[in-house]
């Protein structure tokens, strides 16, 4: 962004119209003392989606985001370094044997959350993963089945006008994607060629970016800066899909509002929350509070809200809040092609093979992985060369001149849920005086075997495609778990509806609900969960099951 936005935009009865530069749309606003039906913390894949669903169901909704409310057409620059405000860059401590890179790697800040800078990959979980323990013999079962989530996958895909292939080769038979797949760039063609030569299936990636116009949103122009924010509105981020829907349905979005604490009443129910906006702490009253801050901020807020009644933090009687944090392992393999690849063009991941998500024979590990073609920009590519090969000096400068001939693949690899991989509070505090999170992560032996296996598969595909001088690197992506859902109150933080076991009007709705991580990008599953939770809440309200 060429100008830093520090003041709230969404207030005084209006919110930015994301489709027109400088324009506004009317927004219903609520006073702090007015008790709203739902206060939602976070406006990303979980919170933003749920805000629209609940508002459309007739509830009064205020959704908070700590970051700005962008208008992508006017705010976003085409630049790797100038878009840093898209990321959550408040201080966090990362440790363990395999510390997770946070910030731009997996954490968004701003209305729309991480979907504003995600790579738009929109894949469904393999149906069996929802019953991983009973059907595949590892990790644990989700408290819901694929069948229960399937209509919500469809709803999420329809809401985002996913561009996908006419026939997707994996998973259950499905309705056609709402939009057609994008053309493939050379990087994707490398994967396709290699996969065909070694005899495994491949597919264009179903993507949440438009292949044909939608309303005021332009189709993709293949500019390649997707993970630095889409300046054309082709990317169907929550910012340009569910947020306008939510506002039109009567929800209020409160940007630049950092929620610091959930407040509890004597009756064991949440009464609202404390948030910081324009330099002052405010108190919003609400009948229900939904936490949707993703796998670090969600447990952090629950822990930071500890009070006399709940000294371990909210919904944490069993001590599970913050635990079983997962990521996706992301080793990559790179090589040099005879052809020019120029993978800076088009969305970074246009071709995928989910072969090893669905094909279990010959694996020496539990779980699965998908791999996709890569498309780094220069700064990101230089970081890969530093990280994997330790290059610097003239060696790095000279190696960088091969940029346009490099092709690579990277996995989204399942990791196991482990109690010691977790989010806790450090003693240090941030600019709001809130204790900052300390994140601990180490790969398990199974995680390592999966990564080794994937490197072998990616090498085989790249070699078959004609790449030379192969080498591999280590990376990771996404955050999952830390407030997992389950069937047993002893063994989980929420039930299948995201409702916490111990506080009946406190809900969680984001990726921290995941009991397992699966081997695909999580956003579509988060949004399907949010759509389902929205419908469940509406149904429960009708039956008078929300309480009070």
């Amino acid at each position: 962004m060429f100008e830093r936005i520090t003041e709230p935009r969404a207030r005084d009865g209006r919110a930015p119209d994301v489709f027109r530069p400088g324009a506004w749309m009317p927004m219903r606003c609520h006073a702090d003392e007015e008790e709203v039906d739902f206060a939602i913390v976070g406006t990303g894949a979980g919170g933003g989606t749920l805000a629209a669903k609940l508002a459309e169901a007739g509830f009064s909704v205020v959704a908070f985001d700590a970051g700005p409310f962008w208008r992508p057409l006017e705010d976003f620059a085409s630049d790797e370094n100038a878009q840093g405000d898209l990321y959550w860059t408040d201080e966090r401590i990362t440790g363990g044997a395999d510390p997770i890179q946070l910030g731009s790697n997996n954490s968004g800040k701003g209305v729309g959350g991480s979907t504003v800078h995600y790579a738009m990959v929109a894949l469904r979980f393999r149906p069996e993963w929802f019953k991983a323990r009973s059907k595949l013999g590892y990790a644990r079962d989700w408290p819901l089945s694929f069948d229960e989530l399937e209509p919500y996958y469809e709803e999420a895909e329809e809401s985002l006008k996913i561009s996908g292939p006419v026939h997707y080769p994996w998973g259950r038979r499905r309705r056609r994607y709402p939009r057609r797949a994008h053309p493939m760039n050379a990087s994707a063609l490398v994967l396709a060629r290699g996969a065909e030569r070694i005899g495994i299936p491949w597919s264009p990636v179903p993507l949440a970016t438009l292949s044909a116009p939608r309303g005021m949103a332009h189709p993709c122009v293949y500019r390649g800066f997707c993970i630095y924010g889409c300046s054309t509105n082709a990317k169907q981020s929550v910012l340009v899909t569910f947020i306008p829907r939510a506002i039109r349905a009567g929800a209020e979005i409160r940007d630049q509002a950092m929620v610091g604490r959930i407040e509890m009443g004597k009756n064991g129910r949440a009464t609202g929350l404390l948030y910081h906006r324009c330099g002052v702490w405010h108190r919003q009253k609400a009948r229900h509070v939904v936490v949707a801050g993703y796998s670090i901020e969600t447990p952090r807020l629950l822990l930071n809200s500890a009070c006399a009644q709940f000294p371990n933090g909210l919904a944490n009687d069993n001590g599970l809040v913050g635990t079983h944090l997962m990521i996706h392992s992301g080793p990559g393999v790179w090589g040099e092609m005879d052809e020019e690849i120029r993978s800076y063009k088009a969305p970074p991941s246009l071709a995928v093979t989910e072969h090893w998500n669905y094909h279990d024979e010959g694996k020496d590990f539990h779980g699965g992985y998908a791999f996709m073609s890569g498309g780094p920009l220069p700064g990101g590519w230089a970081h890969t060369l530093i990280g994997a090969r330790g290059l610097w000096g003239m060696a790095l400068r000279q190696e960088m001149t091969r940029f346009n001939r490099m092709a690579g693949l990277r996995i989204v690899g399942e990791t196991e849920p482990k109690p010691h991989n977790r989010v806790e509070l450090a003693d240090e505090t941030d600019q709001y005086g809130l204790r900052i999170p300390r994140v601990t992560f180490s790969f398990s032996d199974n995680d390592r075997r999966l990564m080794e296996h994937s490197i072998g598969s990616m090498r085989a595909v790249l070699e078959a495609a004609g790449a030379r001088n192969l080498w591999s690197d280590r990376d990771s992506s996404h955050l999952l778990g830390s407030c997992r859902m389950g069937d047993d109150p002893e063994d989980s933080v929420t039930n299948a509806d995201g409702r916490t076991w111990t506080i009946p009007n406190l809900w969680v709705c984001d990726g921290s609900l995941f009991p397992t991580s699966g081997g695909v990008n999580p956003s579509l599953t988060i949004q399907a969960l949010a759509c389902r939770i929205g419908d469940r809440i509406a149904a429960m309200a009708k039956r008078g099951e929300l309480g009070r």
Partner: protein
Amino acid sequence: MPARIPEPSRRPLLAVGLGAATVAGVAGALAWRWWHRSERAEISPTRGLRAGAAVLSLAVLLDSGIEHYRGSFENPAMVIAPTLALATLGMTAVEDRAAPYVFGAALAVGAAGVAFHSYNIGKRAGGFDMLNLFYAAPLGAPAALSLAGLFGLAAEHPDVAKPERVAPVAALALLGTAAEAGLLHFRGAFQNPFMFAPVTLPPIAAAATAASGISPLVAKAARPLLLGTALLGIAGPILHAYGIHRNMGGWRNWSQMILQGPPLPAPPAFLGIALAALGALPALERTR
């Protein structure tokens, strides 16, 4: 899933569609009057074929020129299509002894183009999958050059190109063109309802045209359908121009969007074929 998912934003589609139809109607009517400027000069099969060949040639010239430019003329043979289309266009405008040879060459090169495009698709990763049918060299497009050549040749041989023969050929061509529009509009997910027009009207017109030899009544019914199809051929570029405006950067970003946006010169193929068919109609309307 809810019955209807609310859209985050909307565009004035109806206004655009009606606007394009009006402009196309006025332009079509003016052209029609100009064409009929000599009173009672009935449109003859020869004139229809010649006009059809001219429009098709112009469309192929622009379309293959733009598309092969997108392909960076990677294969030198890619200059042949636009060059030959220019030549056929010339031959429809002037009387020249070389005309039969040029038209014949267009017929042959168009066929070779189809074969070459097929070969190209076949060797790509994925082969004849939908992705390649969408984005690789189009299978149907070179056939338009063949058709221009065929119409040109036919116009030179009214004895062979009898109306009852021209009609079914034009019908088949309409179906093929509608199929190609259908494929590409499917690629665009029929995001604008007007994208259904070229896959509904022309096939009906094709059916009526093909059957117009059966009775004058059918031939009479074919006329308005063909006129509608011709209008589509004029309205198409207008709608496609709007489509370019709808893309990122709009016409200011023409250097990308002329290639990536909806193809401006493609829809007039409907006009060209409809003209050839319209030329055959009067005779068929009279028979029996």
